[in-house]
């Protein structure tokens, strides 16, 4: 562990937490442009967060302490997940402690607490949302693991730093298995972030909503934390996607100059990713909820295929 590594780790964490709403704002803006609407400002998510932090918290009478602590737990888990993913340098102190499997575990923990908090007050919508979220989650998680395992097989390590270093800094090799894994990962991240083919983050229609249904009882700063965590989740998934499939431009060590140089590259990649997400959401239609298992099943099969193709073509 070095001082520059610590600096890279700290910069990365602070940047992720501060910039995550900006990414959400950018995706919303792109989506509005593509749909020929006038777009909300790029800073709109920050304004929403500021508004929610000023508002009073209204709690149900039977809300347990779990209901009140869940937003902070969820936010903490996702902040930690954001710190694990190497975006600005590969020499991160946290990387020794947590690898790709720990990352999936952290994401599972956030889902678990979101679902528990959704059921805590005992409203019908909360339980329904929690059930649906778990239904999507239990299929998305193995697919995500398989995607990460494919990348791990290529680099012979489950550490995300090693994966990035193998793909970005060794001799350029074309990995066909990553093409499969990339498609599977896109499907998983669409489902996990509640984006359009599976869920619509802008809807509050009771028949279709998944993620929003669990948050209906939240208000004030709790809701702000959860909204912020949702942006952070999108940010984490984008960064994992960049780390696995387009890690070029991440500096090998963790020195200050490298971090400064890696920043505009990361910003450009995230901006392109945001446009791609908006495009996917534009061209696809929301699925019936019972199609979601089939969607996630396809993602899982593609991830398995990625491993098979790796065994056939790259070993």
């Amino acid at each position: 562990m070095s001082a520059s590594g610590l600096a890279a780790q700290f910069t990365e964490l602070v940047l992720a937490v501060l910039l995550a709403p900006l990414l959400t704002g950018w995706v919303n803006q792109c989506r509005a442009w593509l749909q020929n609407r006038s777009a909300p400002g790029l800073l709109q998510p920050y304004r929403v967060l500021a508004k929610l932090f000023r508002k009073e918290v209204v709690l149900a009478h039977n809300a347990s302490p779990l209901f009140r602590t869940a937003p902070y737990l969820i936010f903490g888990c996702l902040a930690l997940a954001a710190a694990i993913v190497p975006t600005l340098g590969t020499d991160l102190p946290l990387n020794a402690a947590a690898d790709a499997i720990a990352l999936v575990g952290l994401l599972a923990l956030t889902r678990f607490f979101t679902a528990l908090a959704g059921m805590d007050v005992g409203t019908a919508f909360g339980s329904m949302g929690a059930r649906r979220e778990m239904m999507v989650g239990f299929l998305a998680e193995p697919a995500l693991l398989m995607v990460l395992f494919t990348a791990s097989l290529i680099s012979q390590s489950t550490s995300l730093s090693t994966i990035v270093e193998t793909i970005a800094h060794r001799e350029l090799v074309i990995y066909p298995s990553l093409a499969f894994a990339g498609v599977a990962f896109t499907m998983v991240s669409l489902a996990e972030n509640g984006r359009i083919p599976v869920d619509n983050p802008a809807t509050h229609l009771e028949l279709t909503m998944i993620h929003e249904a669990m948050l209906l009882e939240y208000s004030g700063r709790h809701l702000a934390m959860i909204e912020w965590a949702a942006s952070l989740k999108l940010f984490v998934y984008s960064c994992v996607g960049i780390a696995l499939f387009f890690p070029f431009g991440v500096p090998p060590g963790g020195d200050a100059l490298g971090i400064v140089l890696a920043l505009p590259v990361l910003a450009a990649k995230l901006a392109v990713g945001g446009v791609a997400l908006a495009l996917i959401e534009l061209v696809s239609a929301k699925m019936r909820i019972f199609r979601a298992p089939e969607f996630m099943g396809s993602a899982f099969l593609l991830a398995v295929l990625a491993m098979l193709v790796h065994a056939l073509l790259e070993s």
Partner: protein
Amino acid sequence: MLQHYGPQVINLLAAVLLLLAFAMLAQRRILSLINLFAAQGLVLFLATALVAALTGQTHLYWSAGVTLLLKVLLLPWILHRLIRRLNVKWDVETLLNIPTTMLVGIVLVILAFNVAAPISELAGTVTRSTLGIALACVLLSFLMMITRSKAVPQVVGFLSMENGLFFAATAAVYGMPMVVELGVALDVLVAALILGVFVFQIRERFDSVDTRHLENLKER
């Protein structure tokens, strides 16, 4: 540059071919199915042309050209015309539900990879590792023919099976002799035309192109 990255790009194209085979297996819309078939033809064309450039086998350029002309342009056009004249835009009906079909598909891929492994050991071509993928594409197209109940998806499955065979020939021995290739290409074209007529006949007889009606032909 070409000698170094060429085989890797061929591997990538082979993987895309397998991806498209799975996409066809999961596809419910008939129009998208035909577009996927055209995309598969395009990938096959690129792969064949690249193998030709890598190995200097000029006859492969010809077969790549035939692929482009026949499978990317002519056959999709014929199929589009066919479904326009049949006026069918329905969702494809499957006999097995799609997730089960995909699972069976995975099993087939594992089988194909294992069966092809000893054969590709013997082959001396730069593309030998893709033989398993080619075999998997053939089996997946075959699965698609079995699990679809309407005639047009079955025709598309037949044509995409030929794509897989063609790729297998390129992967194992740098393509078949030109005479055989032209013969097969002509065969496929004629088959598509005949099957087109056949589909019309089925519809005229039963007011539907569901091939399950063919089982009712016996006298009562």
